[in-house]
């Protein structure tokens, strides 16, 4: 019954009817649509057809005998042997196309069928939700590398433009990235010297003033007195206090008054200062104890320690006569 129906319905008109009748019986689904096949076939119908085609390979084998052309069954057997049967309608269409072309029929048909296979594979994987080989796709892609400065500029642009709208942000990002790349850079401009001590700049300012006379000083004082407005707010008051010295400077520097340029070994190894003393005797013993105590003292500067030792030297020299009596 199916064979006769398939042979009669090998027309484009029958194809439309076949599609409508598709979901009814699985055997009817296998009948091919020749020629003018609709491209937009619903996925549901296609799924059903695929399932039916997978389960019923015997029907496919039957189609071999149906076709009048000899090239088709060979193509179908090849497809079935590969394991994943193609949509028989497409197979039929491919065979017809191959026959219509003037060239070698077998070759064209095999190529067309191979293409169909690939299409089917991709659609099936997408339907199943399986992993399309992303690795193959990504491995071919190369990483675009940015310079760290550009990246930093872009990141800063991202952070600064977070609050704006999306559309505006994208436009501004592009323009700002371009402007940052071309115009600005991090190392241009005057340094504020907030976290590092400003060393060179105040020296330049001092060099210009040579020898200010008393009149100059008075004039400067007058100008300062006139221009010094009372502070408008708390910030200006704090600035004034910092200038006067009432308020400390922030970030707090623990070594404001101290300028100890000496290294640690100059603090600890003080034996070289003991050259003026006799090498034996109670005085030497006493001085070694003094040096031991000084080396452990973190509060005195090297100068103060040296002064300490020198005072003792002077003292003992004054008392030399007394010591010699003993």
């Amino acid at each position, binding site marked *: 019954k199916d064979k006769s129906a398939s042979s009669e319905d090998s027309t484009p008109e029958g194809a439309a009817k076949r599609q409508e009748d598709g979901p009814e019986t699985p055997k009817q689904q296998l009948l091919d649509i020749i020629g003018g096949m609709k491209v937009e076939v619903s996925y549901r119908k296609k799924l059903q057809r695929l399932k039916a085609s997978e389960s019923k390979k015997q029907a496919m084998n039957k189609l071999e005998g149906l076709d009048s052309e000899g090239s088709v069954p060979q193509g179908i057997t090849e497809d079935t042997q590969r394991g994943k049967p193609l949509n028989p309608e497409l197979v039929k269409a491919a065979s017809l196309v191959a026959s219509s072309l003037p060239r070698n029929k077998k070759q064209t048909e095999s190529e067309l069928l191979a293409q169909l296979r690939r299409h089917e594979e991709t659609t099936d994987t997408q339907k199943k939700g399986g992993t399309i080989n992303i690795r193959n796709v990504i491995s071919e892609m190369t990483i675009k590398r940015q310079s760290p400065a550009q990246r930093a500029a872009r990141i800063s642009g991202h952070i600064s433009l977070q609050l704006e709208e999306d559309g505006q942000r994208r436009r501004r990002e592009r323009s700002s990235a371009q402007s940052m790349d071309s115009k600005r850079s991090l190392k241009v401009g005057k340094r504020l010297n907030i976290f590092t001590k400003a060393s060179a700049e105040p020296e330049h300012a001092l060099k210009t003033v040579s020898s200010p006379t008393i009149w100059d000083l008075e004039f400067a004082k007058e100008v300062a007195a006139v221009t010094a407005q009372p502070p408008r707010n708390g910030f200006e008051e704090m600035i004034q206090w910092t*200038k006067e010295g009432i308020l400390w400077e922030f970030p707090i520097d623990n070594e404001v008054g101290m300028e100890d340029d000496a290294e640690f070994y100059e603090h600890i190894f003080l034996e070289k200062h003991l050259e003026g003393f006799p090498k034996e005797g109670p*005085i030497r013993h006493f001085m070694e104890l003094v040096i031991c105590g000084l080396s452990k003292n973190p509060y005195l500067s090297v100068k103060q320690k040296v002064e300490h030792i020198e005072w003792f030297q002077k003292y003992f020299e004054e008392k030399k006569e007394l010591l010699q009596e003993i």
Partner: protein
Amino acid sequence: MAAAALCWALRAARQVLPSPCPRQVRSYYVDWRMLRDVKRRKMAYEYADERLRINAIRKNSILPKELQEVADKEIAALPRDSCPVRIRNRCVLTSRPRGVKRRWRLSRIVFRHFADHAQMSGVQRAMW
């Protein structure tokens, strides 16, 4: 006395005034006793190092005793106001010698007065 307190604070902090502050400075101490105390403090600061060194010779078991006796005589010869023992921690505002809290340098009456008027930062009436 406020100026003296300021001076002490500056010395302790070791900050340098970059420019003279055109402010009202109190030029009188509360009383003469306070002034004498200020003088004693200044002298003690000057002679601190010498006293320390001479005492190091005196309080010693290594050096000969004759040397230590000489050192005794020397330290006694120093001016009387140079010893730190004569300093009295008086109240900074009223020069009261007794009842002075060391942290605030104020006598108990002044401290209580300021604390009740909420002019002492972080000080609260105790209640438990």
